[in-house]
């Protein structure tokens, strides 16, 4: 069965620090990859996505993610975080053969940015 693993459940860091959240998936075929974010009190929203092409994708709010096929990874990064980046971050995968979008989510990483 396909699974999605996020390495850290909780991350605490200071403003201006760099952030990297790990994500690995187990499916061997073609995949579409996503990072979703849920800010406190808000709904899940798409941060960025990878379908094909350049493995380094840029999303909203200065976030980027790199797809490394050989490592089955799709890590999220931001060079300098702000207090407003405090949120829960979810990695998700859709198999490339599933055009209707059955998202498989990781368990999420709670990120707290301190002033």
């Amino acid at each position, binding site marked *: 069965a396909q699974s*999605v693993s996020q390495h850290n*459940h909780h991350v605490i860091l200071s403003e201006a620090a760099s952030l990297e959240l790990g994500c690995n998936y187990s499916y061997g075929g073609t995949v*579409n990859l996503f990072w*979703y974010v849920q800010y406190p009190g*808000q*709904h*899940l*929203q*798409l941060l960025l*996505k990878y*379908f094909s092409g350049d493995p380094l994708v840029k999303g909203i709010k200065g976030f980027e993610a790199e797809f490394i096929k050989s490592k089955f990874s799709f890590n999220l990064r931001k060079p300098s975080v702000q207090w407003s980046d405090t949120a829960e971050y*979810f990695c*998700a995968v*859709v198999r490339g053969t599933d*055009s*209707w*979008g*059955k*998202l498989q*989510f*990781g*368990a*999420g990483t709670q990120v707290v940015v301190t002033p």
Partner: protein
Amino acid sequence: EAGVVQSPRYKIIEKKQPVAFWCNPISGHNTLYWYRQNLGQGPELLIRYENEEAVDDSQLPKDRFSAERLKGVDSTLKIQPAELGDSAVYLCASSLAIGGGSYNEQFFGPGTRLTVL
């Protein structure tokens, strides 16, 4: 445009009671999803509708859960009777399915937080 609307936002019930959640998707979106998110986990798909047809309900516990999407717009998810383990956030999402092998972005609602006592 208006997002996905869910109600109620919170619900507290005693075990063995029935409960229902309502979802209104984004206007024009033909695909609707119900997810369950347990504490400390990511959302898990319960059922997916394409218009009014349930096309993927393999994860729906059919002995106590039911769902409907009459007229292919609003949807209701019901639990009867509820158990302690059903405490979770129930999320609804919708998308405009274009098909042809392309992923269709899902837009999520705020969820209903269910507590079963």
